[in-house]
């Protein structure tokens, strides 16, 4: 039992190591945004597409085929004179303004740096996306979240088996649970 749980703790921890570091570093960026510059690099280009297209998805398809853009279509805003939408993947947003009358297309590419990229990966979730890469990140969110719970539970077991650490460990655990559970209950019941 001990050996199995120790190995489970080790394997899951090692498998999730880079994901946990990604979550940790991006959380520092979000908690202390003034420490970092997460401003993306912006490039604006113009393209000529066939006119008279009124479907944002068809315009997006053309741009993906011609310019190799990757991501999912989001925030579609259709008006008579202009069709606007985004093509989004973590760290990169293409803001598209297409004029159906002329086919003129303005593409504003926002490309995040390393820390901005980590921030966007941190926010990737779910399996409902059109773009498979986002679903893949969503799958890892599920795996790492479940692993985190197992790592925490096995960690408690491993600590409890170390007899010389029981007293100080019990004190730390009591302080931690007392502080956090009290705050959680106080917050949950304040509505």
């Amino acid at each position: 039992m001990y050996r199995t749980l120790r190995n489970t703790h080790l394997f899951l921890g090692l498998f999730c190591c880079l994901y946990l570091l990604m979550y940790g570093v991006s959380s520092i960026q979000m908690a202390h945004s003034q420490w970092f510059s997460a401003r993306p690099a912006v490039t604006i280009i113009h393209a000529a597409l066939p006119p008279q297209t009124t479907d944002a998805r068809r315009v997006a398809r053309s741009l993906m085929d011609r310019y190799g853009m990757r991501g999912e279509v989001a925030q579609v805003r259709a008006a008579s004179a202009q069709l606007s939408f985004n093509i989004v993947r973590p760290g990169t947003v293409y803001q598209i303004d297409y004029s159906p009358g002329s086919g003129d297309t303005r593409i504003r590419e926002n490309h995040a740096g390393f820390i901005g990229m980590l921030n966007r990966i941190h926010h990737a979730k779910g399996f409902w996306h059109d773009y498979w890469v986002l679903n893949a990140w969503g799958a890892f969110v599920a795996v790492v979240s479940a692993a985190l719970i197992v790592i925490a539970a096995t960690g408690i077991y491993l600590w409890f088996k170390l007899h010389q650490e029981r007293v100080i460990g019990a004190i730390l655990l009591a302080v931690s649970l007392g502080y956090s559970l009290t705050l959680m209950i106080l917050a949950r019941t304040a509505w």
Partner: protein
Amino acid sequence: MPWMTRWLKKLHMYAGLLNLSILLVFGIAGLNATFEDPGEAPPPPTTAVYDFQVPANVSDYEAALAAFRFLKPALSEPPPQGAIHRDSANNVAFSLYSVNGQRTVTLLEKENRVRVEARPNELGEFFDGLHATTMNFAHTDLRIRMWAWYVEFSIWSLIFMAVTGVYLWLASRPGYRWAQVSFAAGSGLFLLLYAITR
């Protein structure tokens, strides 16, 4: 350096014990985010109306702040100026957010009343809100401020535990084949996906 390994093992374990509940919160928040349905319509809000008179000769922002002070909504911060708007009926309105959910406040000035539409969070959303409560905002509520301190501590602890975990493996059983496979598989998939996403 056996003394360093011994101390890092202790600190790794102590950090884990001090962060037990928040690691569970992170895990639950991640699972909740994974399985939430973005297309699902939110439940209808509960509505309450109170007598409230907007003070004379104030701006929309000051009127909103007066309503906020009157309502004293728990855990919420006063609305920033940019969050104040006029709705389709030309009433001053603003939304308030907390880990427990969202309130939309509308000042019904003609009736000398204020309407509050509340959408409480379910438990999973509550944990999601807790996990995102960082020190990026100056929380005025002591409970939320103390929770943000705990989140701050946990962020640094998470990084510390991830790094020391790898160190403890390398210091104790670096040749363990399944550990190597786990590390290589997890890191390889992460880097591959990062490169594809980039």
